[in-house]
């Protein structure tokens, strides 16, 4: 039981990942699909950030040349900062495409391009 609790951040990761993935696959509304995608990505961000966390660790700022403290790893956070930017760009671009789909087709559900007019 304690092991399961200790791994709670993985459970959160898996749960969010599955929620997002489910939404991407099953929703026909394109905006909802995109939101699912965003949740999916956020789950991965959490995975990265949680792995850098060390019990009792603090922000890696060295004050007064004191190296004795425990620091959390800053690298995953930096990586995720980048990944968040990427995620936001993707979401923004995706929404922009949805806007254009709305303009072109007048609806925002799943459109099968190959079966419509040739």
């Amino acid at each position, binding site marked *: 039981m304690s092991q399961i609790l200790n791994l709670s951040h993985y459970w959160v990761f898996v749960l969010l990942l599955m929620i997002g993935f489910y939404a*991407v696959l099953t929703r026909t509304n394109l905006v909802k699909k995109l939101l699912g995608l965003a949740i999916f990505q956020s789950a*991965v961000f959490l995975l990265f950030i949680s*792995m850098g966390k060390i019990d009792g660790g603090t922000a890696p700022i060295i004050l007064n040349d004191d190296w004795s403290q425990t620091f959390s790893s800053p690298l995953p956070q930096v990586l995720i900062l980048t990944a968040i930017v990427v995620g936001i760009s993707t979401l923004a671009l995706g929404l922009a495409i949805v806007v254009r789909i709305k303009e072109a*087709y007048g609806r925002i559900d*799943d459109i099968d*391009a*190959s079966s419509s007019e040739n």
Partner: protein
Amino acid sequence: MDSVHLPALQVVVPLLTAPIVAVLRDARLSWLAAVVTSVMTFVVSVYIVQHVLAGAVLSYQMGGWAAPYGIELRVDSLNALMLLVVSGASTLALLAGRQSLTLQIGEERLPLFMAAWLLALAGLVGILVSGDAFNIFVFMEISSLASYILISGGPDRRALPSVFKYLIAGTLGATFYLIGVGMVYMMTGTLNIADMEARLAGVGDTNVVFVAAGFITIGLALKAAIYPMHAWMPNAYTFAPNIVTAFIAACSTKVALYVLLRMDFFVFQKNLVDHESQFTYLLMPLALLGIVFGSVAAVFERNIKRILAFSSVAQIGYILLGASLISVSGFTAAVLHLFNHALAKSALFLAVAAMGLYFARLRLQVLRGAGRKMPWTFAAFVVAGLSLIGVPGTAGFVSKWALISAALESNLVVPLLVLILGSSLLAIVYIGRIVEHLWFGDATDKAVQIGEAPSWMLAMVWLAVAANIWFGLDSSLPMALAQQSAIDLLRQLP
């Protein structure tokens, strides 16, 4: 030029010119700037190839921070060859594409479009030069986001739902890859690919690494449009602006395949217990199914671009098949086919783009008789099609030869031969269908009025065709790089 900076220059040149191009107001000028940038990128990659051929492995420490802590750019034979493909395809497509771009994108949007093009180029070459798994992810997303813009930029509204699908698939793939990289990072504490390979040695039999390898492989397979994860690809290729298709089809899936090969062979193959079974029981069957499905689907398609797109599904299968034989000859064949198929598809889609100057829809019915009106474009298409089929004297033959040789060494000779050759025969059928419609079909009203493509564009199309013939008659350059990369990546095999 000092060879040390070449890998950095490769990315920096298009990355920095992109914003400049974006603020230009003149369509022609922006096109010119993009061409010049792309040519420069190409020249840099030629230099890189020269150095790599001489036996060097180029390594560049970003900001002077030493690897594995700093970000490393690293170029060996495999990525050198891919750099040539990517920058070459971009350059040819841009050079050939002014009329086509002006027609399909419009003058006022062209500067922004060209900026997106350069970003896509920067992203693709960035993936290739990176020696760092996370950097690869970032560049992958840069190139993908820019490609979404390129694909949806055309006049065909069906590009929009197609690109949306591509966006979902691409993001899922990249995120899967990121999960895998995160897990490997948990186990090894490094993101540098070379370092990762070394540090995995102790933990190669843990579940985390297994799962990580699975995530990475599946994620990249999705991006590389490996059957059955190809669903996004035919539509995206078909409805993209024609010149964009010529660029994207030649390299974007290939680059994802490159990352797949790099991770699976360089990082995992040696360290993971029984990693071969991933190829034997997963990737090889998928490759074979892809070959069959892609070829058969291509035979029944009616739009010339979709035919070629489904043919790409089959060709990706060839590449993957070569790699999943896990032998030096198989890997050589895979890399050769990466190169040669890019040559063939680039030439084919450029010829299609030339036809696209006159036809908004590229269905075979509409194109009937068009070949007679533009004989030189048509001839170029036919020769490139022969390269796709694998007729001797063209580049496609060399890689098919290599692939069959590798299959003969494997323990599955008969089924592999039947599939490879059978699919070549199907290629004759679908290229033959196009030829028959374009050449023998009764000219449609539209086809009666058209003439030959602009001579400059024609020259570029024929340049691509000439490359197909050149590398079919003298394969020493790609062969040398492919063999070297096979030896590099499979060095641990007996």
